[in-house]
Every structure is written in structure tokens, then in C-alpha cells.
């Protein structure tokens, strides 16, 4: 069997900087509302919407609609699958950043 380069462990759903950032912000024990996440990531509504749709379709992000007072809010959390995928993805990035030789 050939060498296994860490890039093979990178997750397709997390390959764009924005989707990676969304998952990095949505830690295991946090719930962030859409507007706050948009400001945190310094992006715009449409780009964030697209990123969340992709992550949601992959089963990595759960979307919950709620209200604070009379104002509607969209709350986002990372799912268990999303957290696990992010861990594998981050480990692969760390291996690449460290310049590790391909494991045989």
C-alpha cells in the first residue's frame, strides 16, 4: 500500500476558509446566533448562508430558529459529526503545517 499523506484526511466540506472558520467558531459547547457569527467571521449574510447550507447538508451544523423577545434569531451549533470531522481535519492540517513526511 502507498504512503498516506495527511491531505487525504482533509474534509471536503471544510476546505474553504469560511466553512473552516464557521466550524472553528462553533466549538463543542457553544451556540452562536447568525448575526453574531457573521460579525465574528467578518463576512456577509449571503456568503455565510451558503457556507451554513453546505455544512448543514453535510450534517456538521444544526440550525435552530428561536426568539429573543419578539425578534427572531437563528442559532447555530456544531453537531457531534461536525465536531469529530473538525478534529480529524485540524489534525491533518497540523500534520501538513508541521511538514510531516507521509506515513507509510
Amino acid at each position, binding site marked *: 500500500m502507498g504512503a498516506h499523506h495527511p*491531505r487525504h484526511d482533509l474534509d471536503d466540506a471544510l476546505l*474553504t*476558509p*469560511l466553512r473552516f472558520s464557521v466550524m*472553528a467558531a462553533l466549538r463543542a459547547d457553544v451556540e452562536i446566533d447568525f448575526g453574531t457569527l457573521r460579525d465574528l467571521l467578518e463576512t456577509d449574510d449571503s456568503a455565510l448562508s451558503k457556507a451554513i447550507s453546505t455544512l448543514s447538508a453535510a450534517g456538521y451544523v444544526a440550525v435552530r430558529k428561536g426568539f429573543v423577545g419578539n425578534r427572531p434569531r437563528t442559532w447555530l451549533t456544531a453537531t457531534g459529526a461536525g465536531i469529530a470531522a473538525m478534529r480529524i481535519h485540524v489534525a491533518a492540517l497540523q500534520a501538513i*503545517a508541521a511538514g510531516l513526511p507521509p506515513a507509510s
Partner: protein
Amino acid sequence: MIDQPSGDSPQSGTDAAARLLQVGDALNDRVHAAIDARTRAIAESCMAAAVLAYVFAVVLSGGGNAGLGAGANGYEPNGLGFAFLILVPFLAATSLEQGLRQSLHTAGHGRSRTRRVLVASASMLPLCVALILVVFWQTPWPLALLITVVTTVPLLLLATQSARRARNWGVRRPKPVWLAPLGGASQISTAVLGLWLGAIAALSGTTLILAGGLTVIAFFCTVMVTQQSRWGLPRLAGEWGREQWSAFGCSYLLMLGLAVVLSRTNWDLTVVGIVGGVCVAAPLVIAAFRPAPIWEP
């Protein structure tokens, strides 16, 4: 800081990976800071509520004409016991709040420190006014209450503002998924705190003034000595969940309420004290064995 999405081209190469990891770490820090800021806002509004309850208890239990009559057992309180009854839970609350602040990941920035000074000043105003009116001027309680209510307005406004900020915050912890019993030391400390507060409450209604005084002094000394240890109140604050905090809130309010009742009732103070002591102790003793949430470090 974050690039706009640049299509689906895979990031590759060492530099790109390192840059992405840095972005992830920076975001993690900002999310931590946002959660901490919300926790500070909640702590601020709860402490403001605790100060308000404390001030009203001081006025109602110590104002002129307090102790409308001796209890049925003939024991006429001198007010000292009630002062301790009010002071002890307040000391515990302050110590717990300090622990909660220490348990946060990030230090408050300049604006949050300024606000803290503002809230502390707003808290001191009604406290000082209440003490002057009650201790030095022996003002009749309705007048003392009226004046004190006016001085609480700045604190009320700040507390309401903090509560609204916390409610509208866009980053929060969801309902906890993982719950577990408190650690052994925290279980014991929580139960002992409840029993100790209950004992002080029970003794304050009896004629056992020396025993009551010694219990209070021992409490103060223990809080000071254990401040930095794993048995101390600040350590508890980092481990408690919602149930434990609610239980402490109940015990705190019951103790203040008991001070007011004891100073104004004609009932048998021993019975009132003992029943009150049991009620004060029960929430914390039960909460000591209830689970608390486990969060990711």
C-alpha cells in the same frame, strides 16, 4: 481577518495550513471572550440583585422600631445576631462571585473594568445610605426604606442593563449535553456551606448567643483560610451548575428573609430560627448531590 470564500479550491501547502490553524485559534479565543463577557453580565446582574436584597434586609431588620417585641420565649434580640445573619450570606456571595470571575478564560478588557467600578460604586451607595440611616441615625424603617429605594435606582438601572445584555447576547452555551455529579471536595464543600448557613440561621433565633457568635466567627475564618484551596468558595463557583447556583440563591434570600422575620415577629424565635435554619440548609445540601454540566475545557 477571514478571507471571503474563494470557491472550492483546496487549501494546500504548509503555509496555508498554518494560516488556517491560526485563524481557528484566533476565532476560538474570540468565542471564549464572548462567552466570558456574557457570564460577566449575568454575574453582574445577579450580584446587583443580591446587593439590593441585602440592603432591604438591612433596612427592614435593623431600621428604627425593629424587634417590635420580644419573641414568645422572652428573648429580646439585640440586633447583633441579625446583622451577622445578613452579613454571612453576603460574604459567601461575594466570595463565590470572585471565584466565578477567576474561573473565566479571559480577563475583562478596559470597558468591562470601568463598568465593574461603576457597578461597585452604585452598589456602595445604597449600602452606605442604609447603614447610616439604620445604624447611626436610627431612622424609622418606612422612611429609611423610602430613602434607600431612591438610592438603589442607579444600581437597578445597571442591573437591568446587564440582564438585557446577557439575554440578547449572540454567543451562549446551549443546554448541557453532559451532566455529572460534582467532585468529592465540591460536594462536601457545598453541603457544609448549606449546613453552616443553616446552623447560623438556627442559632440566631435562640438565646445561645455565644454559640451563634462562635459559629459566625468560625465561618468567616474558614472562608478566609480556604480561599485558595480546593475546599474554598471560589473553587466551588467554577464547578457549580445552574441547580447549585439556584440553591444558593434560595438559601441567600431565605437567610435575609429570616433576619427580617426574626427582627419583627412576636412568634417563638427559637422555633422560627430552627425552621428557618432547616429551610436555609436544605437547598444547598440537596444541590450538593445534584449533577452539574460538564463543558469542554
